């Protein structure tokens, strides 16, 4: 068993809340807010006008930029408004608001039955170009969190051929189980996606990596791979359960024992990493031309009445999702889009689900802990724990201290931009200093500075 990347922490997993709950249809949409920026890269321009009728799967926003992905309407209906809407990551962003027809209201979304994804599908009929184009047209982005457009990853690069394709089934964030359920229930669809992605990237060596706390998923994918044609050489490997094992850079270190250069991206060393749910979306897009309009979301947290995994229309407001799960049973302190380590706490519950929303986690004060919740701090005691746990081997306390005192050149001399914002340093800090928050603030500040003063 491999599992070696430096640092890392072991937060309690809390996956038992939803690990056994199968994917169920989510709420019928009353109003969908499709954000025009759900990915890394250029923001889409609206492709529809207010008052226009749209059909499910119709493009409502697109961009000509290379690094971008179109967005689609999840339902039949009418564009009520194009307006600014709360965005989980960037604060506010333009969105297309779609309301269903009064006579023909939206139904609860149903995923395709797995029989439609036969394991022995003949993939010869699809060319690499077709696969990449389908992924682009469907608006597929990395569903694991970063939201990098998948088509860009699959695109062949004549200078650096792809040697490895790693399928990421780690799901190292506490609480979240959506990928786990996808691996268990949509096994065939995932395998088909892997086969297609492999074809598109020029048949590189392919490895499926899963943390060792999900033996059932390892077994399910392993068995299916044995039966799928041309997949005998694809190994499923178990990695040590350690946060952030699923981080792209950490995963590559664990699986291949290679480091992605600081400031670089995996393609630079010939590696493509795809999340399991992304693979499933590729299969759907290539075989049925289905755009990415729905995804599996884990709605969880001790306060939620009926936590579980739901197949949800992208654009559904978080509030509707929480209500659909029976609301909350205890006073709640935070609603987090994503998991507790990297997720983003929101105040506006009309924030919609996006392509990268893997979970909605409702945390109570007890789960957060009083010290963390009240943000009571002591001075840094130089204990060095933040250095020990940093998976990128940075010096978080020095960077954070520099940012606090507005010494950005010192922050840069400690490689502030190499931080992946995993949260390990803040998690471990006995002084309860918001290291990750300070570092993120510093990175944003630097990015703005660069924009204002191009060198």
């Amino acid at each position, binding site marked *: 068993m491999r599992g070696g990347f430096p640092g890392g922490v072991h*937060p309690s997993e809390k996956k038992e809340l939803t690990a056994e709950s199968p994917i169920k249809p989510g709420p019928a949409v009353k109003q969908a807010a499709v954000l025009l920026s759900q990915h890394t890269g250029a923001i889409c321009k609206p492709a529809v006008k207010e008052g226009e009728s749209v059909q499910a799967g119709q493009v409502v926003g697109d961009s000509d930029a290379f690094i971008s992905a179109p967005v689609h309407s999840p339902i039949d209906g009418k564009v009520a408004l194009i307006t600014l809407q709360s965005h989980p990551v960037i604060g506010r962003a333009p969105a297309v608001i779609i309301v269903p027809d009064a006579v023909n209201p939206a139904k609860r979304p149903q995923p395709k039955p797995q029989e439609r994804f036969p394991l022995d599908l003949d993939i010869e009929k699809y060319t690499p170009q077709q696969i990449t184009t389908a992924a682009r047209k469907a608006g597929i982005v990395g569903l694991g969190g970063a939201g990098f457009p998948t088509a860009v990853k699959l695109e062949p690069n004549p200078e650096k051929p792809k040697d490895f394709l790693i399928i990421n089934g780690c799901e190292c964030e506490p609480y979240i189980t959506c990928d786990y359920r996808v691996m268990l229930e949509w096994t065939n669809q995932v395998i088909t996606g892997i086969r297609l992605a492999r074809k598109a990237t020029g048949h590189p060596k392919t490895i499926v990596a899963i943390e060792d706390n999900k033996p059932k998923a390892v077994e399910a994918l392993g068995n299916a791979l044995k039966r799928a044609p041309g997949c005998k050489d694809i190994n499923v490997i178990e990695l040590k359960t350690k946060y952030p094992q699923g981080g792209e850079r950490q995963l590559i270190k664990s699986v291949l024992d290679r480091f992605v250069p*600081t400031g670089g991206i995996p393609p630079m060393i010939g590696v493509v990493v795809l999340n399991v749910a992304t693979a499933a979306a590729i299969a759907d897009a290539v075989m049925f031309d289905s755009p990415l309009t729905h995804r599996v979301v884990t709605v969880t947290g001790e306060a939620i009445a009926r936590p579980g995994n739901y197949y949800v229309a992208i654009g559904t407001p978080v509030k509707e999702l929480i209500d659909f799960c029976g609301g909350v049973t*205890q006073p709640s302190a935070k609603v987090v889009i994503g998991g507790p380590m990297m997720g983003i706490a929101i105040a506006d519950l009309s924030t919609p689900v996006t392509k990268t929303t893997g979970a909605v986690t409702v945390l109570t004060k007890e789960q957060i802990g009083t010290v963390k919740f009240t943000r009571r701090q*002591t001075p840094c005691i*130089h204990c060095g724990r933040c250095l020990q746990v940093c998976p*990128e081997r940075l010096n978080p306390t020095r960077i954070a201290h520099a940012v606090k005192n507005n010494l950005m050149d010192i922050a840069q001399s400690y490689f502030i931009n190499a931080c992946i914002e995993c949260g390990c340093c803040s998690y471990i800090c006995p002084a309860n200093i918001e290291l990750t*928050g300070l570092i993120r603030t510093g990175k944003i500040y630097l990015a703005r500075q660069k924009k204002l003063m191009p060198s």
Partner: protein
Amino acid sequence: MLSKLTVSFSPHIGGPYSTRRIMGDVIIALVPAMLAGLYFFRGYALILIPTCVLSCVVTEWLCNLIRQREKPLESLGDLSAVITGIILALSLPPAIPYWAAIIGSVFAVAVGKMVFGGLGANVFNPAMVGRAFLTASFGILMTTWTAPATIDTGLPKVSANRPDAMTQATPLGWSKQAIKTRAAQPQDTAGPAVFVNAQLKNLFIGSTAGCLGETSKAAILLGAVYLLIRQVMNWRIPLAVLLSTFVFGSIGYLANHTAYISPLAHLVTGGILFGAFFIATDPVTAPLTNKGAWLFGAGIGALTILIRVVGEYPEGVMYSVLIMNGFTPLIDRLCKVIPVGGKPNV
């Protein structure tokens, strides 16, 4: 129940550590050494430890008042003043008068910590600052060693210049004597160093004269094991201190084993064990990086031996720690960590 939502940076959960828990663990780890002190030196320990702890805590509170902190009591909650008090008490000669202990404590916290800005900002280990001040001001008091209340090692008793206590030479004082007189000593006679070497077991248990809490090595090791289990300290620091003490201590012994005590004796005499586990590991004044920790520890060991063997004082842990504390910022600068992906090529 979904109103009043808090937004703040991720992560939204915290790990098991807190400053108070870490300091609390250090206090627990110091209990065996305190009990050993109580056992060997009885009433002295009973007075000395509470005196130092109390004066340290009160000093911190007064300093907070003077600095007009909003909540002058809040910083006491991190328990670091208590630790300073205990460590200072355990590193003093048992029979030191209470007023000297109070002066040392006030100096330790006020000058050693609070003038820098409180916990986390101090450069030198506060307890050692207090002790150094006492050594400089009250030399005689700081070198008057009480014989333990239990069995006797047979080290020569110094004529009692204090009527209330039986004083005795420390093993290190004794071996210093040996080094100084080594020219006069024929190679083959059993000199004082040979005598100390033969006393390893008593030294280990603690029935020798010495500082209040430093004498029983068994008790110190017990506390050290607790610290290791609770992952409170960076184990590299004590390991480096002990290794380097052993290595540098071997040099003299290999050259002349009747004049110099053995490296093992170096490890079980004086304050080196206590210093390695409880003083050098003070995170605030030790380097941040692992590489730095090795360097820092090795420096303490080397300097201690240097002072013990070559220098004027019989014991050198305090000064070596203080000297290396001074080097900590430099070590941190030298041992910068490089990101896993290498330096970015911009």
